[in-house]
């Protein structure tokens, strides 16, 4: 025992010796939110720039269309994101570019793509953070996420990814309290500490960045992947859920949780600070019995 849980490159380092107290600390630390980024310091430095945007083009269903890159010149300000420039190009230079986007504030998980080789959200990646001030001809390359089948340009097929999520039964199972009596309403009693145990894992926006960066997914599409496994842990550790066995049976499989070889890239690329690698290791320790699940199933508050 005593492996290190310093997967994310964020500030949640610390030895894990397998007792619940420590598990709590690890969860709590993640809640401190993001560190200040370069953009705060460089607030007034960045001047308007013209950049080259290289976009991967493909139409998977049309054999006549060969995959290639198209290049566009586009101007950028201090606050301009990669999504802003993509939409700028789509609106004024080439209407035919296909991409997904919606909330533009890193909540909906639509605009995951490979930007300069790294899986990121386009709306959450600023041009000014990618290029250096003295580069005379800065270029930014956008490609579809790896590990997802192509559809068109930057749009990929997420069906398998969502299927994996569904398979781990990502919902509260608790036969005792399934029904709710509208005459006598009350909540489960759940302490802030109980909440902290699963909270960081529920930040997951299903953007697929972790899945696209996972080397195990790349070789075994039946592997549930970091997203689904971290959600298995999220529901497993929730005091309102009592379905340990069923969920364990699903992930304890030839293609299941044991295939993770702990590259940790999932935690590196997560835009929301979730640490799926940690979730997977904690689940494993519970499966192996190193960690006893002493979770007390929550009771409904009596009035």
């Amino acid at each position: 025992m005593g492996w290190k849980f310093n997967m994310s490159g964020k500030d949640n380092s610390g030895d894990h010796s397998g007792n619940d107290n420590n598990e709590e600390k690890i969860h709590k630390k993640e809640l401190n939110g993001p560190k200040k980024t370069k953009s705060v310091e460089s607030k007034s430095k960045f001047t308007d720039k013209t950049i080259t945007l290289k976009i991967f083009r493909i139409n998977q269903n049309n054999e006549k269309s060969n995959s290639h890159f198209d290049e566009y010149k586009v101007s950028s300000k201090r606050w301009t994101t990669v999504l802003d420039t993509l939409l700028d190009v789509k609106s004024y230079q080439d209407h035919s570019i296909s991409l997904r986007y919606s909330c533009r504030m890193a909540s909906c998980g639509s605009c995951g793509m490979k930007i300069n080789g790294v899986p990121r959200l386009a709306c959450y990646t600023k041009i000014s953070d990618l290029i250096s001030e003295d580069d005379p001809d800065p270029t930014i390359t956008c490609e579809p996420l790896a590990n997802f089948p192509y559809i068109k340009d930057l749009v990929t097929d997420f069906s398998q990814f969502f299927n994996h999520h569904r398979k781990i039964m990502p919902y509260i199972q608790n036969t005792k309290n399934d029904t709710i009596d509208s005459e006598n309403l009350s909540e489960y009693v759940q302490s802030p500490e109980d909440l902290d145990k699963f909270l960081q894992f529920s930040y997951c926006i299903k953007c697929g960045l972790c899945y696209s960066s996972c080397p195990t997914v790349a070789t075994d599409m039946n592997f549930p992947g970091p997203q689904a496994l971290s959600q298995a842990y999220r529901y497993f550790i929730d005091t309102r859920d009592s379905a340990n066995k069923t969920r364990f049976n699903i992930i304890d499989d030839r293609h299941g949780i044991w295939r993770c070889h702990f590259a940790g890239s999932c935690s590196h690329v997560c835009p929301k600070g979730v640490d799926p690698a940690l979730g997977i290791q904690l689940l494993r320790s519970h499966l192996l019995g190193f960690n006893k699940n002493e979770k007390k199933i929550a009771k409904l508050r009596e009035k």
Partner: protein
Amino acid sequence: MPDVIDHDIVIIGSGLAGLRAAISAASVTNGKKLNIGVFSKVQVMRSHSVSAEGGTAAVLFDDDGDNKESHVYDTIKGSDFLGDQDVAERLVDNIPFEIYQLDRWGMPWSRRDDGRIDQRKFGGYSYPRATYAQDKVGFYEMQTLYDTSLKYDNIHFYNEWFCTSILHDDNNFQGLTAIEMKNGNFVKIKAPAGIICTGGAGRIFSFSTYAYSSTPDGLDMCLRAGLALKDMEFVQFHPTGILPSGILITEGARGEGGYLINNQNERFMLKYAPEKLELAPRDVVSRSMIQEIQAGRGFEHESGLECLKLDLTHLGDEKIKEKLAGIREIGIKFSGVDIVDEPIEIRPVCHYMMGGIHTDIDGKTEMNGLWAAGEAACNSTHGANRLGANSTSECLVWGRITGEVAAKYALSKKESSSGNISITLNNQQILDEEKRIFDNIFRGRGQVNPYEVRKELTDTMDAKAYVYRDEKSLMEGLKKTRELKESAWKHVDDNSKEYNTNFTNVMEIDAMLRTAEIVLMGAINRKESRGAHARIDFPKRDDVNFLKHTLAYYKQDGPVLDWYPVTFTRYAPVERKY
């Protein structure tokens, strides 16, 4: 995939209202389950509901001084007495159940030390009754409902299907036409019952908190099917959008104690709402901010827009990180400001449409077999101004109600036709729709860049129909909108079938133009100031002539306006002071 799909109920939109309706309908059975299809132009979990931040209003602490009557009255007073009072009562009665139901389904509600669900202050309420989960309430509600919906094998999700029209036989709903974006196929969907949950139309403004996907496609489908939109002139401007993106800073930031300050470093709300200060309703705060800016007490943002500042620095590091982590992240990433260290620049921003598809108290539209819920609907909960935290409440309550009522309707249809409902679609309607989208749009011959038309439209709405309005600017806005609408702009450059967002964008812009026209006409027609609709030329509320809802229908030659009465139960209109 066959080119006709059958369902017992179709739900259009997979946001909060749509998911809640799906679960509610899926739970209604008579031994046999109903077959439910959820159609959304985005993937599930991408809907704009995930961006709701601050809270869901509900009376949970009646043992500690809160009571339902107070929530009802706050909502009605907030609506500037244009809200239907029976509807507000329905909201308040039903929302506590939803809060506890979400708890059973795994919602990570923020907790008090004693393990009970916590609540925070929000604008316009007499009790801190915004139930919250950090500052990502809508996101967690969506996650909880989506994950829970996966339990039901009778809910089928159609991700990225762009619905284009409602099929109907006279006044009976029969189904939809849609484009499956992945392959571009045009598909007919048959169902005896439908629920429209397509959200708000706030992208008709440029400076907007809304997701790019929040366009009025669902509203426009209803309009084209002969249904009315109600109270569309009432657009909520939220006081705190960051610049230049318009991304929202939750009202929870003021609920937790944030100040609004001008360039004299004054908490100017002292002058405008001496009792409630920063926690006056949104329309009041937004108007006060524009007055400050016009009096020269604003700041200038480097984008050129004038603004004020939201100061949270006195709340301290710990409280901000615990309760406002999400907006701290937004400030750092999108504004370059850490709210722990310095005030953040903000400006009133288009945030919510009080209006929508005209429905009754059960969410039923004027068409048999068709309901609407959430922001797309106007059941008149919010009247002329919605209180913060009441919209997620509305989505949950009417998601459940419409799901249940539609399911019972579909069941009765099934029973009366001994299990086999046969729907004969009107071929002419389908041909007309194909002509509209394929001949006039996809193969359209327009020359003008549709994206340029969209930009001009949304900039016009920002300039002419913002917080303060008058006849002259509204008329200019309407003239411009009609010019844009009539110009030869309809065409699609991308000629591929597969995932053609150029095509869907142009259909969206077409819907935006018609909806914007109705917003402007309603605003011109309402010669009074009420709630979010503030007319400089008619600064007073006029209960004699305008204590009534606006209805807008789309006829051959354009929109036609009408009036509709407000429902009163117990509360007579009084002057609104905070």
